[in-house]
């Protein structure tokens, strides 16, 4: 199929044509990410929704199909089905086919533990355009993070089947302490399995990830992560025609922004959180928020069982326009504040209970390093244990010193980037490292107060 057949739908390398692109003013959101069930066959340690069992009152097939019609009526261009695990719901392909029948792109995101040939055939028959599966590092790391031995092999086998099926294969990778040094190996794997795009996202402190603070990167790791991503894109992805999509919490305005984001050289830079404006997030019981990652407790603005989707969407867009993010801390003083608006709402909210100050920012880390400081995050209180919940963190500034060089993440990252990883490598971390990082109990620092950086 040529791009020209559906110039409004297909990505032809021009970032402005991306379905995900921020819509024009007063336009509806372009993409909805829809958790069709919370049931899951994996137990991922970083899972923000703590997926496993289905929600108590998930939408029926009739309600789901009606929601598809409302999404189309609203003018959505793409609907991404996620879980939990999307295929744990029996009628997933009915929903997918209806999305396509109503003229929207349908993509699915999967952990691919049981993404069988039959399910791939059903996806193709339903018209699913893209399958994004998760690969989080090399085999041992992926299996440890995903909580399931054999999950990496299952995902890779599924990836090969998908790329041979004609459906676009994309890969999603969580970037955290364990996966960061292994990213060059994942990039090599993308070439091998025939992936057409790669989305990377920083693991944020939500849900089960909040229970494992050591799994998260520290803000100063971005000083090494961004150059690594730039090199991977230049040396591994671009030559193989693999599109690179940094997630919304990978930013902002640093010296490598143009390299990493398509169109940044033409001014198409990050322009603030698009929750409710360019995107919608829908939970399996019909709750609607502006972005699927946002904490439910603070950001659900209605349920489609109670109000039409159009009304909820209007409220979300109005909220974004009329109640801009209150910036604080470093972000308030940043020269890019007006355009950036504190970066990813989700990432900062799950750290501090409110958005507007985001320490996961490359330009911020560089500015502080230039002044001789780095920021570290310390847990203050634990998450209660609900889907999409979060705890609290505080920022601690410390002098930029030699201790940075002793950080194991940095050393392994430098080595893997300098030498590359062998195709048969199964992991850079020892089993003890994996266990220490993932089984760590949350430490509550009594009486800790958030330090507000300059």
């Amino acid at each position, binding site marked *: 199929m040529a791009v020209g057949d559906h110039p409004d739908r*297909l990505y032809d*390398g021009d970032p402005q044509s991306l379905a995900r692109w921020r819509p024009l003013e007063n336009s509806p959101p372009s993409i909805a990410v829809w958790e069709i069930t919370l049931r899951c066959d994996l137990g991922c340690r970083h899972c923000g929704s703590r997926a496993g069992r289905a929600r108590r009152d998930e939408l029926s097939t009739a309600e789901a199909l009606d929601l598809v019609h409302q999404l189309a009526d609203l003018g959505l261009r793409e609907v991404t089905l996620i879980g939990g695990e999307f295929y744990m719901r029996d009628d997933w392909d009915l929903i997918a086919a209806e999305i396509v029948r109503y003229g929207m792109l349908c993509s699915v995101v999967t952990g691919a533990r049981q993404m069988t040939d039959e399910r791939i055939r059903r996806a193709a028959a339903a018209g699913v355009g893209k399958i994004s599966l998760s690969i989080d590092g090399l085999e041992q790391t992926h299996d440890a993070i995903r909580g399931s031995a054999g999950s990496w092999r299952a995902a890779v086998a599924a990836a090969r089947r998908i790329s041979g099926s004609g459906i676009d294969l994309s890969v999603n990778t969580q970037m955290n302490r364990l996966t960061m040094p292994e990213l060059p190996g994942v990039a090599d794997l993308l070439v091998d399995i025939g992936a057409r795009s790669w989305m990377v996202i920083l693991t944020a402190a939500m849900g089960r990830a909040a229970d494992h603070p050591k799994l998260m990167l520290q803000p100063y790791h971005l000083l090494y992560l961004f150059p690594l991503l730039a*090199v991977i894109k230049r040396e591994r992805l671009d030559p193989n025609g693999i599109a690179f999509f940094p997630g919304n919490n990978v930013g902002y305005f640093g010296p490598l922004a143009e390299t990493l984001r*398509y169109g940044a050289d033409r001014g198409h830079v990050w322009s603030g959180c698009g929750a409710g404006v360019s995107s919608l997030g829908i939970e399996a019981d019909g709750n609607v928020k502006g972005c699927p990652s946002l904490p439910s407790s603070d950001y659900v603005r209605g349920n489609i069982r109670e109000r039409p989707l159009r009304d909820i969407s209007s409220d979300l867009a109005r909220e974004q326009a009329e109640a801009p993010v209150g910036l604080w801390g470093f972000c308030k003083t940043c020269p890019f504040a007006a355009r950036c608006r504190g970066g990813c709402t989700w990432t900062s909210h799950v750290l501090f209970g409110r958005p507007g100050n985001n320490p996961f920012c490359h330009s911020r880390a560089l500015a502080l390093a230039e002044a001789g400081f780095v920021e570290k995050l310390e847990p203050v209180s634990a998450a209660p244990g609900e889907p999409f919940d979060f705890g609290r963190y505080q920022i601690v500034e410390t002098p930029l010193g030699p201790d940075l060089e002793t950080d194991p993440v940095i050393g392994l990252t*430098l*080595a893997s980037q300098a030498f590359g990883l062998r195709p048969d*490598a199964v992991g850079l971390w020892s089993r003890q490292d994996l266990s220490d990082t993932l089984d760590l109990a949350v430490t509550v620092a009594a009486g800790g107060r958030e330090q507000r950086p300059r």
Partner: protein
Amino acid sequence: MARSVGTLFKFVIGLFAVLQGMTTLSRAEQARPEVSSSAETLTMSAFIGRVRQDAVLRERFSQNPSGVLREYGIDPSPYNLPDRLTQAQLDRLLSDWLRGAGPSGSPPPSPGAAQPSPPVVVYGPPPGRRPP
């Protein structure tokens, strides 16, 4: 007389330089037994820090990367290590990434300049399918 004094001065300076070099070498040599001690185990980060500071170790590492890593208790098997490191590999390993520009201080090329092959189409129904 003046020439003799000058010659003597040069001799002293030269002797000092030689001794200084020997001292430096001697220090490096003194460090080597520790370095080569199989009892010493370093993390990769600590090893990189050591390589930054120790020219002798750096040279040994570039000549035999797998062997030297093993000496320090680091498993070389996951890495795609050649028999001998190139200068570019060593520079990349030891470069100061805090500047944010990338390895070896060389900024990645601007996206506008000499773009490699553009990304392929990543959206769309499977070939042969056309939405109604």
